[in-house]
């Protein structure tokens, strides 16, 4: 069989102020008809750049420095702009990363899909319209007439991604580059979108290059896997073999970082019933403008345990976190912390409790004042909550405590004088953890603390959180959309949907014997369950 796409020795560089920086080195692979090749790697590994090079869509400062990209018998790397336009959309198409910004917000989605047909076919207006209806039907829209006339803003993220898929397959290309097609989508939606791509591939024999950071998705959906690191393809092979018997050390490390395979996931000791309750929420309701974000939730968290709230976007889990940290007040119901009723404490009244309740955000960098260095960031709780007169004269009065907190978060002491902007995502999250821990709180609310991080970094952060919990007897309220992560770290879990807790219980029970339909659906949507096979 002849390959649809052959990439030989591809090297791509970006021009920067400091000269030419190569980001993809000597990458070679082939994709055969109907095959799915997953390019897996962490941020900065060059996987997206590789995908875009195949489409001739490198940013203006990007440049193919060497190697060849062959599509059937055409050498793409030798094409001029006109040749590219002819190939793109017709023969090779793209499902882009972010459906939120990939559609023109002021044009009807139907017309946007029609653009492809207008460019690459000679169908008349009526035929094009019919074809778009067909396509919308194919990608699973029920009311195609209505959706045809809608604007992107009226569609959810998953529906927008379907529109983009419809335009990617409009003229039945031979090859689709799917660049992180599901990142940012909820698990159940992710499953639907991936199923759709699978289905289309089976029907039309299209080849797919699936660019993803998620090994789970790659394991479930690809025939071959290519693992990228630092711009090099370090390993490639049939998916089952790469998963079962990884050859390269980096592949092994990636696999070991997948939450469901984390070693500590299987060695949790249950928190005894006898420990005191630190968080007690009774029939909590919170409405915004008449719409209930949280609609009657009740749960308790005992000292030293990790209680997870899991749900998809809009399920009310983050609102619950905001109520627990006193950032917003409950509309009704009761919230008790350490036995004290805090339901009607305002922001001012809650201040006394801040020493004991801290929060870590999803995006650490946004939670740091852009003008602050690491010392100022971590010092803030100490500075704000210290009692007695402020130490004057000394430039960094709490330097010792700040350094100790940084070291507890496994950061070197000299980070204290650096600026968060110089740090990596994982290091920034460690700084955020150091800030939360510097005043030695009892309860830490973790609001999606690892969703913005690469897998291997996320695994380290989880490990750090677990260690800190053991050392300091911390209580975690862990907010996440990722069930695999929740399973790795929690003692008990509550599944939220539309502001209600649909199921809660010990993590093993919820995961092995779910009692509601929705939990089953969620569990079903976890990507990469195959990855756990063969774990001792």
């Amino acid at each position, binding site marked *: 069989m002849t390959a649809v796409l052959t990439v030989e020795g591809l090297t791509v560089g970006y021009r920067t102020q*400091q000269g030419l920086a190569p980001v993809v080195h000597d990458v070679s692979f082939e994709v055969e008809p109907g095959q799915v090749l997953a390019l897996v790697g962490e941020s900065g590994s060059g996987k997206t750049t590789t995908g875009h090079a195949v489409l001739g869509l490198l940013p203006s400062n990007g440049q193919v420095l060497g190697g060849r990209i062959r599509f059937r018998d055409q050498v793409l790397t030798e094409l001029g702009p006109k040749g590219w336009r002819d190939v793109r959309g017709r023969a090779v198409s793209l499902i882009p990363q972010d459906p939120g910004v990939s559609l023109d917000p002021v044009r009807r989605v139907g017309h946007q899909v029609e653009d492809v047909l207008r460019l690459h076919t000679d169908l008349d207006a009526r035929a094009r319209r019919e074809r778009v209806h067909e396509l919308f039907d194919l990608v699973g829209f029920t009311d195609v007439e209505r959706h045809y006339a809608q604007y992107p803003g009226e569609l959810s993220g998953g529906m927008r991604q379907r529109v983009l898929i419809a335009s990617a397959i409009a003229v039945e290309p031979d090859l689709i580059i799917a660049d992180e097609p599901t990142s940012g989508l909820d698990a159940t939606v992710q499953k639907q979108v991936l199923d759709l791509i699978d289905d289309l591939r089976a029907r039309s024999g299209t080849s797919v290059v699936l660019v993803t950071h998620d090994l789970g998705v790659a394991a479930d959906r690809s025939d071959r896997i290519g693992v990228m690191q630092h711009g090099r393809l370090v390993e490639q092979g049939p998916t089952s073999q790469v998963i079962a018997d990884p*050859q390269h050390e980096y592949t092994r490390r990636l696999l070991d970082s997948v939450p469901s395979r984390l070693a500590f996931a299987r060695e949790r000791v249950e928190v005894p019933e006898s420990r005191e309750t630190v968080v007690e929420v009774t029939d909590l309701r919170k409405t915004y403008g008449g719409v209930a974000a949280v609609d009657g939730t009740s749960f308790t968290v005992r000292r030293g345990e990790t209680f997870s709230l899991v749900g998809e976007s809009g399920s009310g889990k983050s609102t619950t976190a905001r109520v627990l*940290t006193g950032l917003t007040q409950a509309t009704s119901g009761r919230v008790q912390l350490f036995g004290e009723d805090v339901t009607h404490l305002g*922001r001012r009244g809650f201040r006394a409790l801040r020493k004991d309740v*801290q929060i870590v955000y999803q995006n650490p960098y*946004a939670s740091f004042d852009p003008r602050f260095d690491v010392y100022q960031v971590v010092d*803030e709780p100490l500075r704000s*909550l210290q009692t007695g007169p402020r130490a004057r004269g000394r430039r960094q009065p709490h330097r010792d405590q700040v350094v100790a907190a940084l070291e507890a978060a496994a950061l070197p002491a000299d980070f204290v004088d650096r600026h968060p902007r110089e740090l990596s995502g994982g290091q920034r999250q460690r700084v955020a953890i150091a800030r939360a821990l510097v005043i030695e709180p009892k309860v830490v609310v973790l609001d999606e603390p690892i969703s913005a991080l690469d897998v291997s970094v996320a695994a380290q952060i989880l490990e750090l959180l677990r260690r800190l919990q053991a050392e300091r007897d911390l209580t975690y309220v862990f907010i996440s959309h990722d069930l695999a992560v929740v399973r790795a770290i929690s003692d008990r879990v509550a599944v939220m949907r539309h502001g209600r807790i649909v199921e809660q219980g010990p993590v093993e029970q919820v995961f092995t014997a779910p009692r509601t339909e929705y939990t089953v659906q969620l569990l079903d949507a976890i990507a990469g369950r195959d990855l756990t096979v063969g774990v001792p």
Partner: protein
Amino acid sequence: MTTLVEQEQRAPAPPVPAATASGPARALRWLGGHWTLVLAVAVVVLVIAWALVPGAFASHDPIAVDPAGKLAPPSGEHWFGTDQLGRDLYSRVVHGARASLSGAAIAVAVGVVVGALLGAVAGWFGGFLDSAIGRGIDVLLSIPGFLFAITIVVLLGFGVVQAAVAVGLTLTATFARLVRSEVLKARTSTYVEAATTSGASTFDILRRHVLPNSIASTFALITVQFGIAIIWIASLSFLGLGAQPPDPEWGRLVSDGRNYIATRGWLTLWPGLTVVVVVLATNHISHHLARRDQS
């Protein structure tokens, strides 16, 4: 068969950083790359020096009348020539900087203080206050600024300070709007929320987070408004509503020279050019600040 494509664990070759030069050399290179900015700053520094110590730059008395030497063209003795009363024009331009610049400074100060206060209140408290202040700003913006300034001067009486206050009040709306949006942006940011959970008091949050982060982008606006204020004050003086004779002021000088524009063009040319150069310089600085703020 799983193939091992790349065995070696080499880190990617980082882009070779430009040779890290020593401090002074780097500064020199930066200056070379921003020579227009350096020029603009030099112009502004020069006119500020004129305003502070005019005597150091011009030896003639700006109001000493010399009927014998009136309306003389530019020469070695009188660089910009003399006016209809024989006063040295260069000296008058240099001394005029004080009135023009202090007027512009007062105007911008009034604009910033009143505007930032209103904007901060609107942005921080929101709700009714925000609506009330917002509508007030809308009304202010709907009146042509210069007309509004003239009206205020007429109410306050003529003079540089009155003109400056009038111009300042018209600038208020722009500052208020900018500060409001900046405060709003900071108030709803995650880092302010994080500061709240860290236990910071409202006062501390305003002082340590909201204000410093809101102020940066106002600097660009301050410089550009400074230029506009110079023009407006000169314009008011040109109309006779600002500086009163015999005190020199740039707009006043243009106005005085107007009668001789056909035969003694330099009388309007030099003060006019001075205004143009200074305003262009402040605009350029503002442009640079705005760009840096964005990056």
